[in-house]
């Protein structure tokens, strides 16, 4: 522990002396009150717990430049909802200046119990704009730029302009897109080593009721979101036969009303989950069905919860997870403390605790590994069948486009889709050779493409 003493001596001596002088006058005695030490104190002092001594070292801490790394950083906040509002506040109070925030949503009254930058009068306005305005007014040192829209609509290049991206998203799709895009930026040399200059860290937070998680993704170095896709199974639904034939819970009756009765009654009209009239209809049908089976407990609130798959949310969990994310951002930019390795779980109900673990990279990860993926297909299978297997299989793609030696199928633009549509029903042997490398792109993977080698069985 000799190192510690040396480094403490090396640190800003002036500051130490000043503090020593002020010892004793800490409580409100005569004259000026001493300003409490803040984050700058920690950044400007060396120690035994700086980044280079951690399990995931990011760089060597330099007490004289650490503060400027925060001051000069450009950070993107994805999502201006429950986590986003907290993230912006935490960044403002941690010394950051330049922030962009993007969100496609407008403010709803049910946001107000936790999205604390919004007021009743803001209901209906763009989340990103109201949040940015609030922060810029309350914290005049801040320069927060708002972007209203889908993350997928920004040019990929735009994302390269940030030092760190923090995401406070509520769905798997957007996370996959962002992850794929940022992993796609990393340039890898012949030995497979990534160029550090091209790595943009993602810090990802998520909450559900009293639980939450935060993780650090260093593309191509740590596991990426796609490596852990299996941990986010597709949404659980009730078996259709239970809903249709043997309902026993109020949820079954509600599912029956909106999944089976609505499309039958209104084949032309999609259910608007935000329309009180539509929801009232679903609620009443569910209640009728429940009465028929003598099932209790169908309420309007439960109907909303089932149809919209509402996840309970409270202010406190968002506060915990967002602050953990920004704390990681401070540490990985300044090197003044250690970086989370790599996943933190927060459990708030009983025996409140957070534990961390290394989420290992998946060897077969289609996004952050460079390997091609081999698939075996019958040569008489159609291209459509191949595409369907990519959607239903563990890749969980949505709308894949395929290019081999020839362009096989493109989802867009419409003209190209029309030109390639006829390939869908063709046999694979008519379109490609066995062992041919095919590049697959998909909206869920953002800017990242997958290389697929199709071998005929």
């Amino acid at each position, binding site marked *: 522990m000799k190192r510690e003493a040396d480094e403490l001596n090396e640190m800003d001596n002036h500051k130490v002396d000043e503090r020593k002088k002020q010892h004793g006058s800490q409580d409100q005695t005569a004259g000026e009150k001493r300003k409490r030490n803040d984050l700058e104190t920690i950044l400007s002092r060396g120690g035994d717990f700086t980044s280079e001594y951690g399990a995931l070292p990011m760089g060597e801490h330099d007490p004289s430049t650490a503060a400027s790394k925060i001051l000069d950083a450009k950070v993107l906040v994805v999502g201006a909802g429950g986590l986003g509002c907290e993230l912006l506040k935490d960044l403002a109070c941690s010394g950051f200046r330049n922030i962009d925030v993007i969100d496609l949503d407008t403010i709803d009254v049910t946001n107000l119990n936790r999205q604390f930058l919004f007021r009743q009068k803001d209901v209906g306005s763009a989340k990103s704009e109201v949040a940015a305005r609030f922060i810029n007014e309350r914290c005049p040192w801040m320069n927060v730029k708002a972007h209203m829209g889908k993350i997928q609509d920004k040019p990929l290049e735009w994302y390269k302009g940030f030092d760190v991206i923090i995401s406070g998203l509520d769905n798997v799709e957007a996370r996959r897109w962002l992850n794929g895009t940022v992993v796609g930026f990393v340039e890898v040399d012949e030995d497979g080593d990534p160029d550090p200059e091209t790595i943009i860290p993602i810090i990802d937070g998520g909450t559900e009721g009293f639980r939450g998680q935060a993780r650090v993704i260093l593309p191509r170095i740590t596991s990426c979101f796609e490596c852990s896709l299996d941990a986010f199974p597709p949404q659980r639904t009730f078996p259709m036969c239970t809903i249709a034939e043997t309902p026993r819970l109020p949820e079954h009756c509600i599912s029956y009303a909106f999944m089976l009765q609505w499309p039958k009654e209104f084949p032309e009209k999609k259910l608007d989950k935000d329309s009180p009239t*539509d929801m009232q209809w679903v609620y009443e049908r569910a209640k009728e069905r429940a009465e028929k089976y003598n099932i209790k407990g169908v309420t309007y609130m439960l109907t909303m919860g089932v149809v919209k798959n509402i996840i309970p949310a409270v202010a406190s969990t968002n506060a915990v997870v967002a602050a953990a994310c920004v704390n990681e951002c401070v540490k990985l930019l300044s090197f003044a403390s250690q970086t989370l390795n790599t996943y933190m779980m927060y459990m708030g109900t009983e025996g409140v605790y957070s534990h961390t673990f290394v989420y290992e990279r998946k060897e077969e990860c289609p996004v952050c590994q460079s390997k091609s993926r081999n698939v075996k297909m019958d040569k008489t299978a159609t291209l459509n069948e191949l595409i369907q297997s990519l959607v239903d299989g563990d890749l969980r793609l949505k709308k894949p486009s395929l290019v081999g030696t020839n362009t096989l199928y493109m989802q867009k633009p419409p003209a190209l889709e029309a030109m390639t549509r006829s390939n869908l029903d063709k046999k694979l042997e008519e379109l490609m050779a066995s062992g041919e490398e095919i590049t697959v792109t998909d909206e869920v993977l953002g800017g990242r493409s997958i290389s697929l080698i199709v071998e005929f069985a």
Partner: protein
Amino acid sequence: MASSNKYDRQLRLWGAAGQESLALSHVVLLGCEGTVGCETLKNLILPGIGGFTCIDKEIWGGPTSTPPSSSSSPPLIPSSNFFIPPPLPTSPPQPLASVVSSTLQELNPDVTGSYLVPSCSLHEFISNSVPTASTSTTSLKVFLTENPNIPYPPPNLPSQSGARGTALLVGSDLNPESSLALSKVARELGVPLLLVRTYGMIGTLRIQAGGEEFNVVEPRGEGKKWDLRIRETVEDPSSFPALSSYVSSLVSSLPTMDQQEHGHVPYVAILMSTLSNWRSTHSGNVPTTFQEKAEFRDMVEKGSRDFGMEVNYQEAKREAYLAYGDVQEIPEHVKDIMGRDSVQKLTKGSGSFDILLSALSEFAKTHNGCPPMNGSIPDMTASSTSYIDLQGIYFERSKRELEEFTGIVENRLKELGLPVEYIPLPTISTFAKNVPNLTVVQSRSYHSEVTEPAGEEEREAVQGLVWDPHSDAPVHTPLLWWVGIKSAEEYHRVKGTWPGVGDKGELEKIAVSLLLRYGLSLEAPGSSSGGLLSPSNLSLVLGEIIRYEGSENHCVGSVTGGVAGQEGVKVITGIYTPVDNTYVFNGIAGVAGVVKG
């Protein structure tokens, strides 16, 4: 927007009764400068407490507010606390408590915010040590007891839904000396307290109940215990004739059922029938050994026509422990509290929890040691009619037993000369339905923790943590950082400042004597035990504490304030179990844990 209730997303967690308890409560923040206290309050104002009061002595703005810094560059962090905007040179001076109160008030118009500036020092205000006549601006005690907006003492009669307002104190980044005084006053007044602190990368939250313990009647979260009475009913069908005869008739028609019907017999019936068969070949016993339990589960599987297809039999096998598990008696930890003096000797001043426990003990005498039946059943694969029938059978019995239990409670109240409204029906019902889950958390005061020797319970709890080090790097174990923060607090109590460069030796001595209080000592070099309390680990931690020197990091304050807000909701609503008793966040590694100190 299809819901107009801004509390919709949280009502799904704690329900209308929890929300009403929040709305009746008042939170008092002592110390407004620290991020962690304001964040705690924010996380209680947003979900809708009734009101709050900010108390601080400091002045914001005015000529003295210009930073005395000699350097020309502006500070990196103009404000660590979002609720304290940095004053402009032109800002007229005003109480900091008023600034914080108004920035917090904005968050929720349903909440009434106010502030108070003590006319003495904050420490004197907390410890009631102004020699002249105490007033509400010189004494926290007077302020709390004489303020009509604060539910103190809690109203004699709770609301019809059983909600009761409570006062909650939050001490934020206080001088450790003042924390001590606040703990003492809070315990004397019977008001629950949260002590929150941020210290560099470390945050702590110390929770203290109003009385000696937290009584959690309706714990939610993991580990709900179902009350299905499978074993009791098989062993003694007359104890639950409705269930017994229903299951018998269902089981007798098993052989003639078609495939659809057979695959929709609820697992309660499958388990009862299997257990009954088992007993007939095992001299009336239930499976007890590991081997027998495995055989029992096989027996369940064999009853199926096609195990791979019959989900109800798969469920029965998975839930087999419900058949051979313990009889649903009142759990030991509840029996323990039923036996204590405050329950045995009720008075007019007894709390409703003790009265309910006393009634429970009488109820159990005539019900084979069992509590009133809960009445709700888990979801299980079943035909609509059999599931609804089962629900009805359990519901009817639970309704009958609740009526009986309510009668006992009302008799108790009459004997004590209390009105029956003293314990409203929803409170009785919630209590009766949750007996197997009742939780009592003994809550030692922070004052006692610091000034008195550790009890056996605390010694064991702390010693146990030594054997549970953080798996990757033992030095990150929250216990060590708890030692670090407590040592710094002790140092501050003695010296009046936080330990800085050159103070490590002193701090080490304090830490070693603190460990000793819990029967622990530093490991000898080369010792193979645990590896956590090595001299080098302690030295590393204390070196880092010195580096921080009391500094505030907003994010750590916000994490800790988030947890404190959540624990505040638990304390106020009484439907979740609060932390026992100190939460420690280690922001270096992102790990957190609880130490019972």
